[in-house]
């Protein structure tokens, strides 16, 4: 149980060491990622330049959502961002090499590329979070603090599940890699805003099918002690960890099915 984690640590550690070797380049990259990720927040600010509220949400509340979505996404990108290039790996046959080794294929693909600079986006999210929490007056209870801590890994798991599922499409379609963008960057974008602004069918999709609503929206309602504008049952606000677990199971199953298909339909 522990050994795969230790191995992952080694695999990732070797890459971190190699990236840190080029101090200047790395720092610039990190800083660049940090700055550029602010563009999305600028968009939020531009919107609120024109209106006082988005739906029932104030700018600080949206900033809160935005920050948590950013942080969760950044960590997801950090760990499994390599999946962006998965279609390419399938196309040029490098996935086969993974199958000749005595470890799980997803584990290997994910551990093979770890770009530390992606933390720049998490740092940006962190700053926005500080602003949001300072501006909002959260009634901090133990429960709320726990929720704040738990929602990030839960968010990462949900985002990862969506991303892995999207990446599986690369097994079936040759250039379908681009479909994943709708899930990954689309998912990030979706989660930055309160889902009550989206039309009814899209909202339902985001709650029950691709559960991105559980990355920030529901936990945020609890933390901010906000009345759910959608009037959904309160229990949903505590369901992120469960949803994350379910999402992981679904994604894992789809992935295994996809690998099975790859192994019978031909590399």
């Amino acid at each position, binding site marked *: 149980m522990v050994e795969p984690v230790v*191995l992952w640590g080694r695999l990732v550690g*070797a890459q971190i060491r*190699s990236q840190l070797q080029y101090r200047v380049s790395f720092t610039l990259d990190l800083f660049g990622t940090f700055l550029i990720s602010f563009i999305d927040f600028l968009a939020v600010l531009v919107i609120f330049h024109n209106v006082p509220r988005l739906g029932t949400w104030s700018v600080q509340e949206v900033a809160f959502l935005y920050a948590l979505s950013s942080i969760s996404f950044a960590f997801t990108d950090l760990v499994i961002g390599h999946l962006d290039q998965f279609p390419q790996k399938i196309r040029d046959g490098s996935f086969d090499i993974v199958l*000749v*080794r005595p470890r799980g294929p997803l584990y290997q693909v994910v551990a093979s590329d770890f770009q530390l600079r992606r933390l720049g986006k998490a740092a940006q999210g962190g700053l926005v979070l500080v602003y949001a929490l300072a501006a909002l007056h959260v009634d901090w209870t133990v429960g709320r603090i726990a929720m704040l801590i738990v929602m990030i890994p839960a968010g990462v798991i949900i985002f990862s599940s969506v991303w892995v599922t999207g990446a599986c499409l690369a097994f079936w379609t040759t250039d379908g890699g681009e479909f994943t963008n709708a899930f990954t960057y689309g998912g990030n974008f979706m989660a930055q805003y309160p889902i009550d602004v989206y039309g009814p069918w899209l909202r339902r999709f985001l709650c029950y099918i691709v559960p991105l609503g559980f990355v920030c929206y529901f936990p945020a309602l609890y933390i901010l002690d906000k009345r759910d504008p959608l009037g959904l049952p309160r229990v949903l606000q505590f369901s992120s960890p469960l949803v994350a677990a379910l999402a992981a199971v679904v994604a894992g199953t789809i992935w295994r099915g996809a690998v099975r298909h790859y192994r019978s339909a031909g590399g």
Partner: protein
Amino acid sequence: MIEVEHLSKHFVVRRGRFRRERHVVEAVHDISFRVERGELLGYLGPNGAGKSTTIKMLTGILVPSSGRVSVAGLDPSRRRVELAKRIGAMFGQRVQLWWDLPLIDSFELLRHIYRVPEHRYRSSLERFREVLDLDPFLHTPVRQLSLGQRIRGELTASMLHEPELLFLDEPTIGLDVVAKQRVRDFLVEINRERGVTVLLTTHDLGDIERLCDRLLVIDHGSLIWDGRIEELKERYGAERTLIVDLEEPAPPLAIDGAVVERVDGPRQWLRFRGPAAELTARVAAAARLVDLQIGEPDIEEIVRRIYAGERVRD
């Protein structure tokens, strides 16, 4: 070590952009063979013949459509992870090392991936460093290595966990003569000294000539030859070539039992069967010789004939 019985693999290919015209492609059709422990065999075939597909089925990458495969006593498609610990694979044109990391880091990581005990790893690495002369570039990032260096690194990587069986897909492709020789020496050593079974896919006939005891030839999905190289030469190479250098250029010699294949100035190539002595006497009688050589049947020639569809003569 390897047992293959009536192995087949077909693919459903969809032609056209979005339209679904199904074609069934028989990549591998009913092939059977056995490989004993310790053999060094070559696997030859034109492109698209089914070589990679076979290898993929042997290594567990691909699941067969029908037939039985057993590698080291295991079914590759069912016991992939277990088998992976006992086999090594190297694909000449694909990189299995970590691109941005120093070579030694790749070795260390693989050691952990395969869970090789430290002392075994150290002694293996020691040997490979010596045999393949890895020290000059052991700490260089893989992306900065020359092809020859990278191949040596890849070979080491594939052997670090002391596999019983090694699959090599075009290991010498693109290498210069010296590098090729080094690789071949290495393969001979691990096969003869360590008893590692080696299955070598290659287009390089020099590899075949120098390394392989036995040859499997596949074409259009079917196994068309399985046997020792000497046998191959005998069956196909019943004809040999006598190369004569005459004192001066002359029209093609008319000699009984020989056919002039080629003329280049004073040199002529005569194809013949049977003992050379008699023919040589006849040639000497017919023209003034300066020198002569007897060319053994060239593997390349034989393989070319096989590919061209000449049936094996019984």
